[in-house]
């Protein structure tokens, strides 16, 4: 065995070349216990390097015992450790010594954090494959038994995931024991363990002999499916899928279907929801015959369930269900047995149900063909396009491509256009944002004439929306449109309108011009950029608002690579140098940044650059951003909170970004974005909004969370909640 320990790297010190190679390793080992989590994490991620340096023997006798006892650490460190150990077999001396890895993973499998436990189980499963059958029974199976009979439910839940990897390779006697342990976990006192067992039931069934599945797994399954805890019963639905896959049609009918029927009519909506959610899998597992006899009626019931969550889950599955029906007779079944229920759902009382349906209903067009679509589905689409809930309309619009293939989008354009216009002007900015994202798609399908005629004006209107996020999305939308319709189109329709905004009295609109130029310059190419855009940018360098001026500097930096050296040297550089002398600190800073970027580019192009033209580095370093404020400058909390928010910029520029009022009714998100504040408006008093993603899909009364990073009155990384309904 000792031979397996490999070359004599064993005793650690690699002889003569000692110091050089040892020092970094020594640092890594010491950092395993550094106070900084990040350093510990780095060190754990390089555990293989440490193990390699220590050699297999010291890894086994010193490193692993140390790791076994370090389970006090932060979750992320433990997670990394659990992951590392899964690939450690080679580092402890190969498969013969794989069992040395079990103790640390065993203790990781009992921690309270689910992700860590799951990762430890995953690594254990990996390592089990490297055990010889003898070692498996000598080391691995005892570990599984220990976990399965542990005092705490964390260890017992971890055990559930390990049965299926040791069962196939164990001897008959041990197999019996393993089954016994699994059985007892299925009737454990704590719901946690029963849940773990229920979720692994299908996986375990797959490795068992068919007879055992019928005689042992099915009773366990039936028991779990009638557990007193809802959370256990609903997991049995999942197991249903795997078990049904293993059995013949007759056996499914006799052993699984009674339970499944019962689940579809369970008293708890969560269980019925699970049936609806897993419907496609169930359908595939039980086969077409049972689907027709049993599942279709069950599905009809789910579609008219009294709980909206269940109806929504079922509505989501309509398309998949129809797709998976046997092609022969599919049309009749859909037309007679499914479509009537779908028609009802179109006018459901719950908007989540309607929008779930709207997200899949277009898919039916391809299944039913042109005639049926025009006759039966089109009225539904049209009804949904007029739905009062914007989400429903959005979902229809986002799936237009399915219908386009079957009947052509023109059939819809009559109703489509009012729907789009209405969404484009919706009072909720998130709805406007969503429709903007579909614009390039719509433009592609409707063609350039239709677009120019009907939609172009919308796209331009978004550029002057009062919410920053919309303006931002509108600029990137323009870029995508140009990519689709070409530069000539851009030159004729878009660029002039964008450039006109440079003279707008509102500084936010003037900045939008700059943002558009940033986005469009690349798509439009050098000629348009140099001839049409650059002069406007340069002109704006004299703007009275500092925000605009430093955005000019940023724009110049951005479009620099597209311009030729002539333009850079003759036109851009003087302007930047002038901005570099600006009285405003931020303008100066961004001008310096741009100067060095431009200088770099010129140097690359072998243009002579004099040293004196290099930016004066000191004083312009990054640390002054965001600019530190003296205590005296602080306007004080109370004042901040009571200042008005709806006002646009105060004359004189960036002060317009003042005091975003958090007292404004509901939603710092709306208030702050309406002020147009983002990370790029670097001003003294600002809030950064860097995550406005609503967390929806939680039933109609969930909350959205907004992550707002504030500079002054709000502590960093504060979470604000807005009640969705209040909006």
């Amino acid at each position, binding site marked *: 065995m000792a031979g397996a320990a490999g070359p004599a790297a064993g005793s650690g010190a690699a002889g003569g070349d000692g110091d050089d190679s*040892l020092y970094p390793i*020594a640092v890594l080992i010491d950092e395993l216990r550094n106070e900084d989590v990040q350093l510990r994490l780095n060190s754990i991620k390089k555990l293989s390097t440490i193990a390699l340096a220590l050699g297999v023997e010291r890894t086994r006798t010193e490193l692993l015992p140390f790791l076994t006892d370090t389970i006090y650490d932060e979750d992320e460190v433990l997670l990394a450790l659990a992951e590392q150990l899964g690939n450690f077999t080679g580092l402890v001396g190969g498969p013969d010594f794989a069992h040395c890895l079990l103790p640390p993973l065993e203790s990781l499998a009992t921690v*309270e954090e*689910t992700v860590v436990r799951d990762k430890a189980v995953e690594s254990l499963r990996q390592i089990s494959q490297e055990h010889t059958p003898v070692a498996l029974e000598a080391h691995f199976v005892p570990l599984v038994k220990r976990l399965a009979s542990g005092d705490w439910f964390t*260890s017992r839940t971890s055990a559930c995931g390990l049965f299926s990897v040791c069962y196939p390779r164990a001897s008959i006697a041990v197999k019996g024991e393993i089954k016994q342990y699994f059985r007892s976990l299925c009737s454990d006192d704590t719901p946690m363990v029963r849940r773990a067992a229920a979720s692994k039931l299908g996986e375990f069934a797959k490795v068992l002999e068919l007879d055992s599945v019928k005689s042992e797994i099915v009773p366990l399954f039936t028991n779990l499916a009638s557990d007193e805890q*809802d959370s256990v019963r609903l997991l049995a639905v999942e197991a249903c899928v795997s078990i049904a896959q293993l059995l013949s049609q007759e056996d499914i009918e006799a052993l699984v279907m009674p339970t499944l029927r019962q689940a579809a009519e369970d008293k708890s909506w969560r269980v019925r929801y699970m049936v609806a959610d897993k419907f496609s899998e169930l359908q595939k597992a039980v086969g077409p015959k049972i689907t027709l006899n049993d599942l279709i009626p069950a599905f009809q019931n789910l579609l008219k369930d009294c709980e909206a969550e269940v109806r929504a889950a079922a509505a989501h599955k309509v398309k998949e269900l129809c797709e998976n029906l046997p092609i022969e007779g599919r049309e009749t079944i859909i037309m007679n047995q499914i479509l009537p229920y779908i028609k009802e759902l179109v006018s459901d009382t719950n908007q989540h149900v309607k929008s779930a349906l709207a997200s899949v209903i277009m898919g039916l067009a391809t299944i039913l063909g042109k005639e049926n679509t025009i006759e039966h589905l089109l009225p539904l689409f049209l009804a949904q396009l007029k739905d009062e809930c914007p989400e429903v309309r959005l979902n229809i619009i986002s799936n237009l491509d399915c219908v386009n293939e079957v009947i052509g989008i023109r059939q819809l354009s009559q109703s489509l256009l009012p729907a789009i216009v209405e969404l484009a002007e919706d009072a909720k900015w998130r709805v406007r944002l969503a429709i903007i994202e579909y614009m390039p798609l719509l433009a592609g399908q409707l063609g350039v004439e239709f677009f120019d005629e009907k939609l172009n004006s919308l796209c331009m209107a978004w550029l002057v929306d009062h919410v920053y996020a919309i303006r931002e999305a509108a600029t990137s939308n323009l870029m995508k449109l140009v990519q689709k319709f070409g530069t000539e189109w851009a030159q004729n329709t878009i660029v002039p309108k964008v450039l006109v905004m440079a003279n707008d009295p509102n500084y936010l609109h003037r900045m939008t011009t700059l943002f558009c130029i940033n986005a469009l310059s690349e798509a439009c190419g050098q000629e348009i950029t140099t001839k049409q855009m650059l002069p406007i940018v340069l002109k704006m360098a004299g703007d009275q608002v500092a925000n605009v001026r430093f955005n000019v500097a940023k724009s110049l930096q951005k479009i620099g690579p597209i311009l030729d050296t002539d333009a850079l040297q003759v036109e851009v550089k003087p302007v930047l140098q002038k901005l570099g002398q600006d009285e405003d600190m931020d303008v100066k800073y961004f001008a310096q940044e741009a100067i060095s970027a431009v200088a770099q580019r010129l140097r690359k192009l072998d243009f002579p650059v004099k040293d004196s033209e290099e930016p004066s580095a000191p004083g312009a370093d990054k640390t002054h951003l965001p600019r530190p404020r003296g205590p005296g400058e602080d306007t004080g909390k109370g004042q901040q909170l009571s200042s008005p928010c709806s006002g646009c910029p105060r004359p004189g520029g960036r002060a317009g970004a003042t005091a975003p009022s958090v*007292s404004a009714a509901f939603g710092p998100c709306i208030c702050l974005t309406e002020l147009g504040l983002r990370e790029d408006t670097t001003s003294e008093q600002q809030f950064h909004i860097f995550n406005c993603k609503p967390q929806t899909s939680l039933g109609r009364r969930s909350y959205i*969370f907004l992550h707002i990073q504030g500079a002054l009155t709000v502590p960093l990384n504060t979470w604000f909640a807005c009640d969705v309904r209040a909006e």
Partner: protein
Amino acid sequence: MLGPWCSPTGSPAPLSCETGCGEGTWILVCRLLVPTQVSLLSMEEDIDTRKINNSFLRDHSYATEADIISTVEFNHTGELLATGDKGGRVVIFQREQESKNQVHRRGEYNVYSTFQSHEPEFDYLKSLEIEEKINKIRWLPQQNAAYFLLSTNDKTVKLWKVSERDKRPEGYNLKDEEGRLRDPATITTLRVPVLRPMDLMVEATPRRVFANAHTYHINSISVNSDYETYMSADDLRINLWNFEITNQSFNIVDIKPANMEELTEVITAAEFHPHHCNTFVYSSSKGTIRLCDMRASALCDRHTKFFEEPEDPSNRSFFSEIISSISDVKFSHSGRYIMTRDYLTVKVWDLNMENRPIETYQVHDYLRSKLCSLYENDCIFDKFECVWNGSDSVIMTGSYNNFFRMFDRNTKRDVTLEASRENSKPRAILKPRKVCVGGKRRKDEISVDSLDFSKKILHTAWHPSENIIAVAATNNLYIFQDKVN
């Protein structure tokens, strides 16, 4: 592993025997002071918190507002007892291990861990201060060697892990024993750190923070019997959380009317059924209790059962509505009954009978004549809690003047006891107290007028299986034990 709720390991509760909870049954085990801010500092220096002597905590004659205990809760085995205070601190006491030569000391609780759970905050959206006061503590069923508890203030629920550590790694490569840096050139071998035993250290670490889901003040938290969810209730809404997920919660009850002027009642307390994961109850300021079934629908705005006692018109007064407001609701361990506390009474309801309680106990009926002055000094809004004993045969709740009351449901006897400093000698036997109700005051009676309304016992806890109780009286925590024990 049987949960303590399924089979209380204690023998038949002595309280239900003939003596009831009558005279001389209860003795003081210890009086614990929640360490003040000052002593907390010195505790941090002392690594071994377990060794802190009770004497060190004893006899702070002063109590700051922050030291007032605001919640008391035993864990599922009764080995640990947690208190929360107005200063946002959680103090966990551990029961003295049983040892043969110190039989009489059994039942004493010592400080196990102390940590700052909540800090004062400021709500910038509403320009409101958020107090750090701990409103409720709930223990989670034990899942590994560490203990877990939920603590909440008005807005934020936190999940804490309390764990022990008795080893620490030793040996560095780049430093020597005294921490001096070594010359990298002298490093010729690698050292792997070795773990050495050390004095036991108890650490409390925040594992999850469940914030931003409550617009109003959280009054209750309750852990579900499925071990994976819990609920938090505020004045108008109840939310359901998963322990693993902090950025989402499901709103299951919402009684907020579209127009706030139509608001007639608020949620005062809520609790899950001890065994049925789908059932919970919540009480309202109108004296009613609603039972909801989460199986029926995702939103439980419509209740399944509605418990209400018809009002006696002859007793109607200006204060009727205020004193009928329910301050606490508790399921019995068996899950069959619910107990509610209103200002003057404790009521026990059978889940199967909605129209009236099966038992009503008068806690301090003698205050009925003093409601006017209690209204003036705001005492009428005090929120008294109530608890069951391990076998559901006795109930306990607090009163004024440091009195607390016990009612034996079988013998119908009741007793008034006092948690006071005067008899705080260990092993002292508690003398029953009597408040004079009639005209003449007998020798051992106390007149209603001499009751001290600033000394109120709002929070009490009963050991899950034994006759040990914890009673919080302002900044003092008294542990009493049945003498038979």
